[in-house]
């Protein structure tokens, strides 16, 4: 296997406290120690003099695969046309862009931004099989996905019966069977209530009809079970009342309810509003205070960027709400026993007060959280905007002048209702590296990602410093993925399939018999046909579960 050296680059590796000029050595897809023998010649040397070398990016929360994303592509030919297309080349299949790029394009564009890993945050177990096919057609990057469990009937039955061991067995089974990476909760219990036509759930103590459980009970049971299973990533939570003015109170209540457990709160921007429809304002202050003073909870932002995009969520009620507000086309799909799904096109308009506030509130989050290890960069792609907007967000974080300039173009009331303009903080390169790679990797429990220490995956990005930070981060010079130079001085050289990362917690065969009986009684597919079969996911790679975390 060949030996690669990245020479003389300015290495930013926050996990290992490194922030200086040095060499990196790569062999067999991993970072290796510099050879002891000074006579050893690498097979290739990349001269990174003057360049910035970072671990490749890790996206902790995006929507890039599964039936929801794919149906959104099918529903929006106008958006696909708007986005334009990507030509077939010798190494890459053709494809389309827009807010839901086709699979090959998705992989290539992530790589083109210097990203090496992306986690799809919302897959219904019943859609796992299709998801694997889509991800297999998403080249270069490593991929993983989280399973929607917050409205799962079996889970809610376990919660009602306080059957903790049974719940753990179920999660272990479903994670193994679907080769998923972690557990996601979307509006715990609320999706079930909406699916059943029983209205909305807006507090943690509302009752989930038919199950006699509360969102609070579902959340605490799942956070405990995930800790007990020692999954690398804690429960990934999409809270209640997404997008609704005044929702910050329920977000704070949620944070308090899971106190003591590890948890990750997704697209927190969408859950941080005070006031009502007329008086909507930022409440980031209280929520960020909570994050600043509690160590086991992290967030990703779900930054909104102005322009055309597609909202998609497992929270069916949100789809209906957006359709009513915008009058635009609406796709909804209820998935038996598991979840809902809503897709509505959306245009974030900088002259629209609500949208402008959302933009400002997202940025306020980045600036208010003191410890960058607790906050990850995301647009909740494509909900707040495309992942392709990450370089622009980085630029906004690194340059307060740019923020002020943009803020000045927004409706006056934004400045009254969100204190974004008061923040002079500018992110350093190290902080950017933390929120885009090292932090997300650590929050995901991917110990082999997000850093450049010996033994880490050789997923490395090399940027040419540029006063224009958006340009710098959108045009990396090199991407090395698993030791292979994929992006070579700006040219895409290959587009091989990356790994599919999943967990394989210990199973409980005795209990699986019960799951099988229940499954066959309730699902319209047979238990025997659910689990991914031998060799169906050739790129599968297990990320080890650790010790019990609670």
């Amino acid at each position, binding site marked *: 296997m060949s030996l690669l050296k990245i020479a003389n680059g300015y290495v930013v590796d926050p996990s290992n406290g490194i922030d200086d000029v040095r060499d990196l050595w790569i062999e067999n897809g991993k970072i290796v120690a510099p050879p002891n023998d000074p006579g050893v010649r690498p097979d290739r040397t990349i001269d990174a003099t003057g360049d910035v070398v970072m671990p490749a990016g890790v996206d902790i929360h995006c929507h890039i695969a599964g039936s929801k994303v794919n149906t959104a592509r099918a529903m929006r030919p106008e958006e696909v046309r708007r986005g334009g297309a990507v030509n*077939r080349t010798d190494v890459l299949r053709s494809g389309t862009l827009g807010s839901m790029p086709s699979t090959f394009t998705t992989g290539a564009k992530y790589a083109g931004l210097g990203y090496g890993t992306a986690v799809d945050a919302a897959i219904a177990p*019943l859609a796992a099989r*299709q998801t694997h096919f889509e991800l297999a057609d998403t080249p270069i990057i490593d991929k993983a996905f989280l399973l929607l469990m917050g409205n799962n009937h079996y889970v809610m039955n376990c919660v009602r019966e306080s059957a903790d061991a049974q719940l753990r067995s179920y999660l272990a089974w479903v994670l193994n069977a679907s080769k998923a990476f972690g557990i996601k909760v979307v509006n715990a219990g609320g999706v079930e209530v909406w699916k059943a036509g029983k209205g909305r759930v807006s507090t943690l103590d509302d009752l989930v009809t038919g199950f006699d459980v509360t969102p609070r009970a579902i959340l605490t049971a799942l956070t405990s079970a995930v800790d007990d299973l020692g999954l690398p990533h804690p429960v990934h939570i999409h809270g209640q009342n997404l997008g609704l003015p005044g929702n910050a109170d329920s977000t704070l209540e949620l944070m308090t309810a899971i106190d003591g457990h590890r948890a990750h709160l997704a697209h927190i921007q969408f859950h941080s509003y005070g006031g009502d429809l007329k008086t909507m304002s930022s409440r980031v202050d209280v929520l960020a205070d909570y994050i600043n003073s509690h160590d086991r909870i992290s967030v990703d932002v779900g930054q909104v960027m102005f322009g055309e995009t597609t909202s998609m969520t497992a929270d069916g009620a949100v789809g209906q709400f957006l359709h009513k507000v915008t009058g635009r086309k609406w796709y909804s799909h209820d998935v038996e026993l598991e979840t809902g799904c809503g897709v509505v096109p959306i245009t974030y308009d900088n002259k629209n007060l609500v949208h402008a506030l959302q933009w400002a509130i997202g940025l306020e989050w980045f600036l208010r959280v003191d410890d960058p290890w607790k906050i990850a960069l995301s647009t909740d792609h494509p909900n707040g905007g495309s992942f392709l907007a990450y370089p622009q967000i980085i630029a906004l974080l690194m340059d307060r002048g740019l923020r002020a300039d943009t803020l000045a173009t927004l409706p006056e009331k934004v400045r009254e209702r969100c204190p974004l303009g008061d923040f002079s903080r500018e992110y350093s390169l190290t902080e950017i590296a933390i929120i885009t790679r090292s932090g997300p990797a650590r929050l995901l429990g991917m110990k082999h990602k997000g850093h450049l220490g010996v033994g880490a995956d050789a997923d490395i990005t090399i940027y040419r410093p540029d006063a224009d930070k958006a340009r710098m981060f959108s045009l990396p010079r090199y991407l090395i993925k698993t030791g292979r130079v994929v992006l070579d001085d700006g040219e895409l050289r290959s587009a091989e399939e990356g790994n599919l990362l999943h967990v394989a917690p210990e199973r409980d065969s005795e209990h699986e018999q019960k799951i099988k009986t229940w499954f066959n009684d309730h699902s319209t597919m047979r238990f025997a046909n659910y689990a991914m079969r031998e060799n169906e996911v050739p790129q599968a790679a297990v990320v080890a579960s650790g010790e019990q975390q609670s």
Partner: protein
Amino acid sequence: MSGNSILPKVIDDATCPGCALLCDDLRLTIEGERLTNVESGCAHGRAWFAKANIAPNTPIRVGGQAADLNAAIARAAEILTEAHAPAIWGLAQATIETQRVAIALADHTGALVSIEGQDTSSLRAFQRVGEISASFGEVRDRADLIVYDAVENPHLPERFVERFAMPLPGRAIVWIGSEEAAREFGIEPNLVVTPLIGGQTSFYQGLRAIVREAVVDLTRVSDACGVEIETLTQFATRLKEARYGAFVRCGLGANEVLAEAKFKLVRDLNSFGRFVITHAGSKFSNGAGARAVLTWQSGSAGETDFGPGIPRYVPCDGLQSRLDAGEIDALLELAPSGQSPAQGRSIPRIVIRADIDPLPDTNAEVEIPTACPAIDEGGNMLRVDGVMLPLTPIFPGRRITQVEVLRLILARLQETTR
């Protein structure tokens, strides 16, 4: 059982590709080289599986003469290389695995892709207004009202009712269509509404207006659709009062405007209770899969032209119109039926098809009979409601599969490009 002591082998929970319902609860018994029993499937499904024992063993042919695989692959690759505007058609009964490689082949050769049996009117209506749908389990477990939309050439897979829509106390059944058709499908509806075939759009638009309490001239609606005013208003009330209604489409969308009227009615009924629209499925076992694969690989769900080096959605300039205009100069067909949209045209055709029915000569330049999904080929298919199911082949490895043939052609093409 014959004298040798081969024990019968049983495959439980086998998936049936007899139609788009993909029932995955069949029990197959195999004795030696024969499938001897099929349980749980409907008559059509059993008949479908019975073909496992026929194996017509049609020879590979090139230019009408028996040929070996290598020669056929070489000729197929040659045809596709020489073509300026090739097309790939069929796909709706192939596995996801085959479909993925077929679209790769289209991308490589700059072909137009057209999926057999696609409901393009409904696709376009969906692209205008969206759709409120559900997996079949939701219908089975929640629906207190099931409305069958069965006016024109209705098709209802045999096991749809048994699996997803059993009559229950508290569940009302409405049949939109003729009483005879309801009887034919064994449905005993609580209400039959029979709009005129040409009056359906008025019928659904009128219902939607009544439901939304919009100003509407009921007499005109009634005249246009041939349904009494009283029936219309009664039915509208019933729709509004449903806790969870399911509108089950049985057949193809005749036109875009009509399909749109249905999608909008169902969508707006969600302002009262829950209401979803589903499709009972056609004979094309994996049409949904073909559309899904094409969509994730290209961003386009309908007819797609890879000719420009990028995928281009060409809803108004698809295979048929290009064939008519003489613009297609080679056709790769992936359909077991042997029917071809280019029959009688003088363009070279490559037919790669599951060899399940003995067919008369297809007159193709290249014909490669292959294994058949679920009989001697594994893989996956997508149920019409979005649930993907694996196949369990009865005689794996018995014959070369479609995906293997397509991979060989693609590899040959990639060699020649290098």
